[in-house]
């Protein structure tokens, strides 16, 4: 069972990711409270951290720091939004990407990496300001939890204009396998907590071993490996791939003059209209020309294989593989009919097989 919801989604995601990365660093609100000893003491108590330099003024004064310092791992604590999460928050460049993933079924989320670098220790009275930068989107990847995208962002904390700490944070946004989606939320600001919050959502219901640690980045045993070559799907070509997924060979058609054209494009070469629709072809054709590919090696394919230009009775030509037939038997004029091959869990490619004439 293939699950192709929207062939344009990947391209739209990547375009959005590029825009968000180009937006650069976006500053959020400064810490509600400056670095202070009561919050440090509360934190150290809860953590069981007995380091005196965090709370004991005398011991701290005699130390390398010369005074009380905050534990470096508290950096994110200072700029947490508090109980009333939305108050005073500003959108970050990450929000829109997470929202688009949520809106397209990638509702599961699991935090996979948290990397913090501390340039120096903070002292009471300092008031860090976080700045978020969208760092990257990779996928779709097959993971133990389901198909997903890895979303990465960076936060830099500034005191005045000095960067004092940095964080890389990565989450996997996935399509839960069981279909019971983790509850989505629009509050992107609190993603890191939600990531933790929903860390086991989906995982607990998956097959044994499908836990986030058992390889968010590895395909589970027995899953079909992803086909390495992906077609370029965009606004002009999406209809074609949607058709392929449904077992239809769709040919672009001018909505004004009715002329068919392939490969798809934005404008009719005959009447210059940009209005377009498509027709479903009969699925018959014949070899107009072909090559037998022996070399170089192509990922995911076993040479030799046939790449043919197939002429359709509808009047256009289309490039495709001729399969289920030894290359030596392929010839110009050979009658063909279309077939649909499931390349992996996502991708269906139209191909051609010999037809009795």
């Amino acid at each position: 069972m293939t699950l192709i919801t929207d062939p344009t989604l990947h391209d739209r995601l990547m375009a959005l990711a590029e825009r968000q990365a180009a937006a650069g660093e976006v500053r959020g609100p400064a810490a509600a409270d400056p670095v202070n000893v009561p919050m440090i003491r509360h934190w150290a108590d809860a953590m069981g951290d007995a380091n005196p330099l965090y709370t004991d003024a005398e011991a701290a004064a005699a130390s390398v720091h010369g005074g009380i310092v905050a534990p470096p791992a508290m950096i994110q604590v200072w700029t947490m939004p508090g109980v009333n999460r939305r108050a005073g928050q500003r959108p970050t460049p990450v929000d829109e990407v997470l929202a688009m993933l949520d809106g397209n079924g990638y509702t599961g989320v699991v935090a996979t990496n948290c990397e913090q670098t501390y340039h120096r220790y903070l002292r009471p009275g300092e008031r860090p300001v976080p700045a978020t930068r969208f760092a990257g989107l990779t996928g779709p990847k097959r993971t133990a939890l389901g198909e997903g995208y890895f979303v990465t962002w960076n936060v830099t904390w500034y005191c005045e204009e000095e960067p004092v700490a940095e964080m890389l944070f990565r989450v996997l946004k996935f399509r839960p396998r069981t279909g019971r989606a983790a509850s989505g939320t629009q509050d992107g600001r609190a993603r890191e907590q939600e990531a933790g919050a929903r860390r086991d959502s989906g995982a607990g219901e998956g097959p044994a071993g499908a836990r986030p640690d058992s390889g968010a980045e590895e395909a589970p045993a027995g899953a079909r490996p992803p086909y390495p070559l992906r077609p370029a799907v965009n606004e002009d070509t999406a209809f074609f791939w949607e058709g392929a997924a449904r077992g239809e060979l769709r040919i672009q058609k001018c909505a004004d003059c009715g002329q068919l054209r392939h490969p798809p494009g934005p404008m009719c070469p005959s009447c210059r209209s940009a209005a377009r629709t498509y027709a479903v072809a009969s699925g018959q054709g014949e070899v107009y020309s072909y090559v037998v590919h022996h070399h170089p090696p192509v990922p995911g394919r076993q040479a030799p294989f046939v790449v043919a230009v197939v002429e359709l009775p509808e009047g256009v030509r289309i490039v495709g593989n001729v399969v289920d037939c030894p290359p030596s038997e392929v010839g110009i004029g050979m009658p063909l009919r279309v077939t649909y091959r499931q390349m992996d869990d996502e991708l269906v490619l139209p191909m051609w097989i010999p037809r009795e004439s």
Partner: protein
Amino acid sequence: MRTLTEDQVEIGSSLPELSIELTPTAIVSTALATMDFTPVHHDVEGARAQGSKDIFLNILTTMGLVERYVTDWAGPEALVRGINVKLGVPAYAGDTLTFTGTVVGREAGEFTVEVRGRVSLGDHASGTVRFALPE
């Protein structure tokens, strides 16, 4: 509490193990101390409604405990420069979180310790902590 000196840190040596009982109080107090009020860290019903078996440790606390694990051993004046953590299974209330660590590198006055925090389900967190020792 004394801080280690550079010649006391040997590549390949192990840190003493640290086990932390994850009582509900530990989960809740650390979540609140890190200003994380997400219900799954303090509300059992809320956590179950979301498919978790219980409340569990938040990520800011995981980072804090990893830091504490290394400075407990290296000493109060050890200067923590960075923590890189790969997050794994949830650390639920009622479980025990056990840290182990090994000194794996030293470069330009900076040491690297490899740390693993395990719970009954597997690795909760694994990664590295970088720190320097005062002259």
